[in-house]
């Protein structure tokens, strides 16, 4: 007959079981390639990818081929101004400083127009864009200066639409032409824009945005995928049956996994901040104790969600598919890695459905001193979600078979 356990003994045995579960999970994690990848390599890759794609300054110049077919000669008695030369100079021809500021490098094209079309030449030479100043263009421009009814003087821009930079180069040319219009035809600047950052986000760059977002994305991904795969595999291997037939309680088991995912969330955070700092110069302006709360309750939120999913989807493959179908839309729609503000209104509403939105907003606002005052509401929601999801997940997890 088992001896009657005192309250202290019960607490001791309970802590012993939680400790045993946590330690064994840690050893299994250290020896598992996929687990290490999702904790250490995945956040680094994601920060580098998104940082370079959206955050890093692009120093490369767009090579713009041009062909000047205009026959205007300097010294023409009628027209002293040579617009064709002027636009090429305004685009940075023979002026490296200007070219660099426009991100352009002008290259004179050599095309036998009698034997090949512009499009074919571009296709054969893999040229993404070509500027052609047609014959008589300068004359047409100068004519416009003295004759208000003269037809518009047009230059030709050929581009390959499959290059995303085609539209950027076109906008550079448009801007230069616009400046010329203003300078040559004295069009007054009536309306203009003065750009300035909002006070809340002053001085922030994309990397300031992506690092906290990516920390919480990685925590959500590793917590949910790790927990769901572990629960379903443990069920299939009979370990859940063993737990069910042992003194281990469901809450002890769930708590040990919540604890473990909190530990990994600390590792993920440190690693992500270091990567952002080393590669992109990310500056963590504050380290506030409440950040620990975000990590703990964030981990509890996603661990709890994983318990809910694995309660209803029993097979490993199906459970992983269900988790992926939640994790990936959440990653892109929650505003964690792309600001929700750039999305259409209805998408911004959708973003606020995902727990990751509040968790990443809380972490992001806390990491940056200028936005700390915005952290309280998402922090409160994060704590609430953590408690609710973890409690519900633990309660509805059913070890006893029907």
């Amino acid at each position, binding site marked *: 007959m088992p001896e009657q356990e005192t309250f202290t003994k019960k607490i001791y045995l309970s802590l012993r079981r939680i400790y045993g579960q946590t330690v064994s999970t840690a050893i299994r994690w250290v020896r598992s390639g996929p687990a290490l990848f999702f904790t250490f390599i995945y956040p680094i890759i994601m920060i580098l990818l998104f940082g370079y794609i959206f955050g890093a300054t692009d120093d490369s110049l767009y090579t713009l081929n041009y062909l000047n077919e205009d026959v205007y000669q300097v010294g023409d008695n009628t027209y002293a101004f040579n617009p064709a030369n002027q636009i090429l100079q305004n685009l940075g021809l023979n002026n490296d400083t200007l070219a660099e500021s426009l991100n352009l490098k002008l290259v004179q094209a050599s095309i036998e127009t009698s034997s090949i079309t512009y499009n074919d030449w571009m296709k054969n030479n893999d040229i993404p864009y070509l500027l052609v100043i047609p014959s008589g263009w300068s004359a047409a421009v100068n004519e416009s200066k003295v004759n208000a009814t003269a037809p518009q003087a047009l230059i030709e821009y050929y581009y390959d639409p499959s290059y995303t930079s085609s539209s950027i180069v076109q906008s550079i040319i448009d801007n230069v032409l616009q400046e010329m219009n203003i300078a040559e035809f004295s069009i007054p600047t009536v309306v203009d824009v003065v750009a300035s950052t909002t006070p809340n986000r002053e001085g922030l760059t994309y990397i300031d945005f992506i690092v906290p977002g990516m920390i919480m994305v990685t925590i959500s991904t590793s917590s949910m995928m790790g927990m769901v795969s572990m629960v379903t595999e443990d069920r299939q291997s009979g370990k859940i049956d*063993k737990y069910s037939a042992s003194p281990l309680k469901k809450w002890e088991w769930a708590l040990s996994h919540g604890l473990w995912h909190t530990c990994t969330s600390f590792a993920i955070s440190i690693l992500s901040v270091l990567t952002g700092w080393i590669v992109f110069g990310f500056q963590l302006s504050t380290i506030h104790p409440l950040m620990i709360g975000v990590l703990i309750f964030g981990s509890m939120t996603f661990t709890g969600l994983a318990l809910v999913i694995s309660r209803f989807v029993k097979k490993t493959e199906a459970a992983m598919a269900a988790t992926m179908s939640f994790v990936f839309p959440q990653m892109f729609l929650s505003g964690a890695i792309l600001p929700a503000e750039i999305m259409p209104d209805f998408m911004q509403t959708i973003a606020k459905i995902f727990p990751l939105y509040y968790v990443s907003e809380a972490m992001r606002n806390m990491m940056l001193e200028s936005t700390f005052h915005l952290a309280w509401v998402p922090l409160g929601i994060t704590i609430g979600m953590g408690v609710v999801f973890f409690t519900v997940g633990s309660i509805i997890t059913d*070890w006893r078979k029907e």
Partner: protein
Amino acid sequence: MSDVEDYAIVVEDLVKKYGDLIAVNNLSLKIKRGEIFAFLGPNGAGKTTAIEILEGIRKKTSGKVIVLGKDIDKRKELDQIKKIIGTLPQEFNTHLNLTVKENLRFWSRMYGKNIPIEDLIALVKLEDKANVQYKNLSGGLKRRLGIAISLVNDPELVFLDEPTTGLDPRARRETWEIIKGLKEQGKTIFLTTHYMEEAHVLADNVGIIYKGEIMDIGTPTELIDKHGGANKIIVRCNDQETRDQIYNILFEMGPLENDDGDIVISAKKKGSISKVVDLLEENDVPYSDIVTQRPTLEDIFLTLTGEILITSTETEEKT
């Protein structure tokens, strides 16, 4: 002596239904403390459903289950049961990338009462594999570790659900020796199997279960005496001509031909053996051998259910 003191398990009218399907139908049994009880039946007979209800991990539809004097329907008593039973679920796999020792330490921490891990490793003869990860063990060694895990809390009652399924004959016999050793330690063993040989070799009592119902319970000898009928006389011969000759000579005794081409006669009456020998000698028949055979559990199963059960892993591998 009361049932509580005398019996490790008492089951009365246990029923488990899944909708219209009855997985366990009015199962009643009593298992004495210290005995090995084998639940024998084919796949789908209801063995695992029944054992999982007794372990407290599956809900029952109706009936009463008392394990080690405690009622599984009472939550506090079920919690106490869980501390003093050991279980090996069917096709159980523990943590793949923990070593033998780490796995035992892990499961040991789940219980309040433990026996030294080194003793358990020695019990299942895994001393030289103590630091090998579970995933690198053979099937037989994995099963041995599974049995060791079921013993971490020094249980009074051990449930083993098909402990040797899928093992080769040598690994199976090694597992049998371990199970016999547990009985010698005074533990009660409840095992399920679909191997006749296993039930015969290990069990003090056998319950034959078929389509959710207990067909009969008893010692192997009792069941054979009760349902096995007479001994068999088997006349072995080498060719078809001799076989036909023997068949004709023994025709009055109702001869049958078995799968091996031997002639089988039921020794229902006294003197049947000498009569067979005399008839064959008189007719100078060149038979190769005459043997007598007691009925086996396989015959009992056939008598009770009308179906043939796998007798051993060797047979399973052949089929």
